[in-house]
């Protein structure tokens, strides 16, 4: 549990977080526009800036009390910066050794050096100089180095922002799986909603140097005025599992068999859109933009759209900015799907709470590989 209230002035920018408290386990994403203070908050949490003031507790350990701060060296944190921040002119191996040589005996347990370097995909780079690595490779080394620090908390400040699209995709999958497998509490900064949806267990929203709210991912994605939605509009994330590709090359995504109604829904996904080969029966998440969901009162025949999902209208909210209506649908296994339609459609369809409808989903993206 992180608990505190931090202040830090950097140049003309003033962070004044306000009192906060959130669970440390899992991934906590700090989210906000650039200039909202998320990097400054992470620096204040890490203790990297001597100017930090206020209070901070991790569990029953005090990290900050007024001007007094536990030194960074004693906090057991692993930090991944926007740039890899490797020691120039040295090999990958000696960069990693810098971390391993300074781990105290009390924290020397955990996955081995070999396992971590293999996992992060840098075993073939160990004898190369870090000066000759690509951006993606450098950031992999930085991640391995942070893991080898044997951290109690992993802090990542937009680790993907300096990478090209392909490296971004690969590294996001790597970070996701490493964090999940090694169970390291993580603080992660991003301004990309897609990274939030894939990684976050909870989201700390920031604006103008303050924490505006702390929400679970489910809470953050089911309110239409969520800051996550400023660019693409509301988004739903559905949990389910993947089936086997059928003879038409379509990949089924179905409700979890453990849910109350395992037959709740089946989405047919175009196999070609998902480059990596999904494992049958593996849990997966589907990301659907509300503006890609249309509604019909009955199942529509004679239409090319494959995905028609039965649902019930839970509530209807207006978006103040766009004058459009967000219709919250409850699927038969209890998950929420949001459809964004016009005010006029709501009226002409005579939509009311509790009504049964079919959600017509144009496109959906798989979040997991």
């Amino acid at each position, binding site marked *: 549990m992180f608990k505190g209230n931090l202040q830090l002035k950097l140049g003309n920018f003033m962070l004044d977080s306000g009192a906060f408290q959130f669970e440390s386990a899992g991934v906590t994403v700090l989210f906000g526009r650039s200039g909202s203070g998320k990097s400054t908050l992470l620096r204040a949490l890490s203790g990297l800036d001597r100017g930090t003031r206020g209070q901070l507790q991790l569990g029953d350990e005090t990290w900050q009390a007024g001007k007094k701060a536990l030194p960074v060296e004693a906090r057991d944190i692993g930090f991944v910066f926007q740039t890899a*921040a490797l020691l120039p002119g040295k090999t990958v191996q000696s960069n990693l050794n810098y971390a391993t040589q300074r781990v105290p005996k009390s924290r020397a347990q955990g996955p081995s050096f070999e396992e971590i370097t293999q996992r992060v995909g840098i075993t073939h780079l160990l004898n190369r100089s*870090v000066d000759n690595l690509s951006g993606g490779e450098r950031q992999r080394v930085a991640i391995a*180095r942070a893991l080898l620090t044997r951290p109690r908390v992993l802090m990542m400040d937009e680790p993907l922002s300096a990478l090209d699209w392909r490296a971004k995709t690969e590294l996001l999958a790597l970070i996701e799986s490493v964090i999940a497998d090694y169970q390291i509490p993580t603080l992660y900064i991003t301004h990309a909603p897609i990274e939030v949806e894939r990684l976050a267990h909870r989201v700390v929203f920031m604006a103008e140097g303050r924490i505006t709210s702390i929400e679970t991912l489910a809470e953050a994605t089911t309110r239409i005025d969520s800051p996550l939605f400023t660019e693409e509009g509301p988004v739903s994330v559905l949990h389910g599992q993947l089936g086997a590709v059928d003879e038409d090359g379509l990949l089924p995504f179905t409700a979890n068999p453990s849910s109350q109604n395992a037959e709740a829904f089946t989405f047919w996904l175009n196999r070609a859109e998902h480059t990596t080969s999904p494992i049958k029966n593996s849990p997966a998440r589907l990301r659907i933009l509300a503006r890609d969901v249309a509604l019909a009162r009955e199942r529509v025949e004679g239409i090319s759209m494959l995905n028609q999902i039965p649902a019930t209208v839970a509530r209807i909210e207006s978006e103040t900015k766009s004058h459009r209506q967000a219709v919250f649908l409850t699927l038969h296994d209890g998950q929420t799907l949001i459809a964004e339609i016009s005010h006029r459609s709501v009226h002409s369809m005579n939509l009311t709470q509790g009504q049964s409808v079919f959600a017509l989903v144009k496109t959906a993206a798989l979040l997991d590989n």
Partner: protein
Amino acid sequence: MQIFGYPLDLDPILLTLEVAGITTVVLLIIGTPIAWALSQMRSRARIFLEALVALPLVLPPTVLGFYLIIALNPNGEIAHLLKYVGYDGQLTFNKMGLIIGSVIYSLPFTVQPIMAAFEALPTQIVDAARTMRASFLDRFFTVIVPLARQGFLVGSVLTFAHTVGEFGVVLMVGGNIEGQTRTVSIAIFDHVESFEYAEAHMLSIIMVIFSMFVLMFVYALNRKLQIKQA
């Protein structure tokens, strides 16, 4: 020693190299903390302190030498203080005086390049070392000094070369005592004064060649030490 039939007095050369070497080492030891403190300073006092460090650059060497003679005279406060800690020797008109004068006169040549290198440090790399549990001294010697190595190289070479070429302060604080405080630059002056042009030529050409080699060495090494930024 004779070269091309002309006598070459080695004493001034050896003395000059010795004083310059000791001055460089002393300045690296005291100049590095000063450079670090200044580079980290955010208060207004920094303007004053930076100006103070740079003062020897603009002051006429005679002014500096004059104040040093007064401050270091055998009946002065500093000499008395040193007697308490056990140093009973003279502070002026001997090698000690030359070194003290050179250290003060060359201070900005050590501090300024090293300070500039400290200010240009990539902070994320130093921060990364902290998160890997490197204490201040640990990261200072394993991260900061290697990253600032060009500043140290330029600082020490400039200090050494500048001390070799010193004239005013050395003459004021050291006098012109043969075999004890007569450095190359003073010896050349002496030879010219007494129309011994051949001897003056000999020392002068040695200085020209020496300086040329030092500069070429610095430029070559500087290129080799360049840090690749990715």
